[in-house]
């Protein structure tokens, strides 16, 4: 893989300088939390060892997205939102979030029904991820097929070498970005060695905890297992895990009208809610927390694997960190593994 070097301040200048001709999204500290937002003049891009609280999902699949607008006084007329070819740069996301885009690609770039809203954003975006020198205790990305320096889903993967970044060129899109900018120079032998040491140290810091292959084998005939009776018990069904999860993509479609005009919206929804599957007839195939927790785990570690040969979890640890009752997906998976 081709590797380049760029000084950190040169890269920051390049990114903030590009904000005129393209949208740049990067982590910024807002009221004490790290969030990914579109950079405005004066914003300070912050790359810390902390991951952003919310994932990159919003930037490609917004929580609330207009599918089209309508005017009740003009039946049959619908206006799609403008699909633009405005270029976008996403900078500073972690490899787990970059990896989640490969999960989303399976869902929204399928051959049956390509999703124009997602594809418009995805195809116009260069993803510049930054590897994790200091993974945190909630991370288990190495178990899920990613890892602190995984290049999956990224166009460029950066390794933090203190004053500069080593730039791994992953895709053609990444390659042309690098070629357009003279601030990138070829990496040398010494930098490659430093990179090796950093990658090695970080990779060792993410301890193997769960084995998705073993979990999958259990789940293959584990639908009626009695683990499901136990593991959901603490869950209060708040849905936090699914909203923060970079791979959860369930949504609802609703109309919002004010006066005579309105919009059909796609909004995030969650399999952890009872209304999610409630039939008009009153029946509900996932009546209790047990069925809903089973669906969440099964979807990520079995159903999605059956359909796409990939687990729908990047090991980012957000659900572990922010669950109000400390339900830890890693513990759930371990319980399944030994069930």
């Amino acid at each position: 893989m081709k590797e380049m070097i760029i000084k950190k301040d040169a890269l920051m200048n390049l990114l903030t300088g590009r904000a005129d001709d393209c949208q740049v999204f990067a982590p910024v500290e807002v009221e004490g939390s790290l969030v990914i937002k579109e950079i405005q003049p004066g914003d300070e891009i912050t790359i810390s060892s902390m991951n952003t609280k919310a994932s990159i999902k919003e930037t490609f699949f917004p929580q609330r997205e207009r599918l089209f607008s309508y005017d009740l006084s003009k039946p049959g007329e619908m206006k799609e939102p403008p699909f633009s070819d405005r270029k976008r740069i996403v900078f500073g996301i972690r490899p787990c979030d970059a990896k989640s885009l490969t999960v989303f690609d399976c869902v929204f770039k399928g051959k049956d029904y390509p999703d124009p809203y997602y594809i418009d954003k995805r195809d116009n975006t260069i993803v510049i991820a930054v590897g994790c020198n200091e993974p945190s205790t909630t991370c288990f990305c190495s178990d899920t097929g990613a890892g602190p320096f995984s290049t999956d889903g990224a166009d460029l993967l950066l390794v933090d070498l203190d004053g500069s970044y080593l730039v791994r060129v992953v895709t053609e899109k990444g390659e042309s970005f690098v070629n357009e900018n003279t601030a990138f120079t070829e990496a040398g032998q010494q930098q490659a060695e430093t990179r090796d040491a950093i990658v090695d140290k970080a990779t060792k810091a993410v301890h193997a905890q769960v084995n998705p292959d073993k979990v999958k084998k259990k789940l293959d005939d584990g639908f009626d297992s009695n683990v499901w009776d136990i593991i959901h018990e603490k869950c209060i069904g708040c849905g936090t895990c699914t909203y923060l999860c970079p791979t959860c993509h369930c949504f609802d479609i609703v109309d919002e009208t004010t006066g005579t005009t309105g919009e059909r919206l796609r909004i995030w929804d969650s399999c952890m809610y009872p209304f999610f599957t409630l039939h008009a007839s009153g029946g509900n195939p996932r009546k209790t927390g047990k069925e809903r927790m089973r669906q969440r785990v099964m979807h990520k570690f079995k159903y999605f694997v059956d359909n796409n040969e990939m687990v729908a979890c990047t090991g980012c640890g957000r659900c572990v960190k922010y669950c109000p009752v400390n339900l830890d997906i890693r513990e759930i998976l371990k319980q399944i593994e030994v069930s």
Partner: protein
Amino acid sequence: MNNPYLPLQARIDKVIMETEDRNIKSFELSFLNKKDEENFQFVPGPFAELSIPGKGEAPFGIASSPTEKGMLKFSINRTGLFTEAIHNLEEGAIIGVRGPLGNHYPVEAFENKNVVIVSGGFAFTTLRSLTKYMIHDDNRSKYKNITVIYGARSPGLLLYKDELREWEKRDDIDLHVTVDAGDDDWKGKVGFVPAITKEVAPSAEDTYVIVCGPPIMIKFTIPVLQELGFPPERIILSLEMRMKCGIGMCGRCNIGSEYVCKDGPVFTLAQLSQMPDEY
């Protein structure tokens, strides 16, 4: 790129009140745009998302047959927000249609076979489509005996009454209409669909059976069919789940790894027995 969320525009040409409780209406639609009509190709079985701006969308089985050119039919039971809104529309109104969505009945496999249709209540819709399709002049000779067992709670709740009368007269379709409870004028069969299926006792030999209806009817009909010797590969069902997108993305209609909206709604009993019991 085709936008799968954008409904095609259609006009309601005809509204038919089907049942005496005034809860089920049939709507006959035609596309405003000739191109949409040409592109809307289907084989009986799929559904479509009907759409009214401001009221949202809901999935409905396509009740017309592809042999009924230029017309799309839906029969809609009034139960909530959307269905109430569509019941309030009049002839001439414009509505949206997204589809056809989902798979279809395996009509190719039915060729040179007997076909039995067992249905109760308003789930008859896509089976009306199938029946119409199979008895069409172009198609009838492809199939052997066609038996239709169709039941409703009372005579007034039967759908497509005029058509049933026509089918009654044909000798190339063996029709058994039944009601749970008759009235003074009712001269047909009285009894629940499973019991009538047992009484009619269609031969399982070289035969496919399609079952659609309320869960309770399906539950009691399947054992009857198994007793008659139908193997699970030749028992076909059409499922209903809560749906939104209809294109396998929104995540709510799956049974195990299968999305009912995309991989279904038509499954064989053999397929269903491989899937978790979550529907």
